């Protein structure tokens, strides 16, 4: 296996782990953490392709990841603020118990 494939495989593993974290844990904070892990795995993917792809001097993947990190930060902040608001509202962050928006 080429090193690119190895990196990609690793990223896939972390992605799966993040997905598992997001859908199996009860705590809302951990769902968010899972999302962050998935984002990070995607970033790794980008960087791997940047490094082993053509024209690394164009810095395309690099800057993509940079923006991704910035956005992930903003999103994490907002997500956590939301969790705080929900917690104030219903005194729980157990997402099984937050189901008012059902059909």
């Amino acid at each position, binding site marked *: 296996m*080429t090193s690119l494939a190895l990196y990609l495989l690793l990223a*896939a593993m972390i992605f799966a782990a993040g997905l598992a974290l997001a859908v199996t844990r009860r705590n809302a904070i951990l769902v968010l953490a899972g999302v962050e892990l998935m984002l990070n795995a995607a970033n790794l993917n980008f960087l791997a392709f940047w490094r082993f792809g053509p024209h690394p001097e164009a810095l395309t993947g690099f800057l993509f990841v940079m923006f991704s990190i910035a956005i992930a930060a903003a999103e994490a902040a907002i997500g956590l603020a939301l969790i705080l608001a929900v917690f104030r509202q219903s005194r729980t962050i157990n997402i*099984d118990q937050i189901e008012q928006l059902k059909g």
Partner: protein
Amino acid sequence: MTLSFLIPAIILLIGAAAANVLRNLVHCVLALTLTFAGFALLYLGLGAEFLGLVQLLVYVGAIAILIVFTVLLTGGGVQGERHVLSPRWFQGFVLSVLVFLLLGYGITKSSFTTHAATSVDSYPVSLIGDRLMTNYSLPLEILGVLLTAATIGGVVLAIREPRQQTKESE
């Protein structure tokens, strides 16, 4: 399979597995932080030094702290929860396994035309800055707006409503 790949990989995997399994919320968060650090190491290994340090600064230094704050503010993790996993956790586990298998299949079956891992060229920060200011100036500005909005939004969401004592005091 060089060492500079292997060590951060192991750290990553351990951290991710731990985050999934551990009972205590704070322990999970710490495992997460470890994972972020592992990523940073990998970025450094890939020749993206700037990004590796940015990863450390932002993820480890800010996001992880935020998560910890939130954990503390929501009063969680003080005692171990009885049921960590949601009732139908198996469905999610199966799903993630499936996704991994599929992705793995795709990766292994694809043929990548890769360039030889050239010597790790260092790209000076000035180059990054130059790119940001010319080709990617628009995304930069948008990002600025986004961050502003996120800041404001975060404050609005998190602020406590002032209690209404009497109507005259409005």
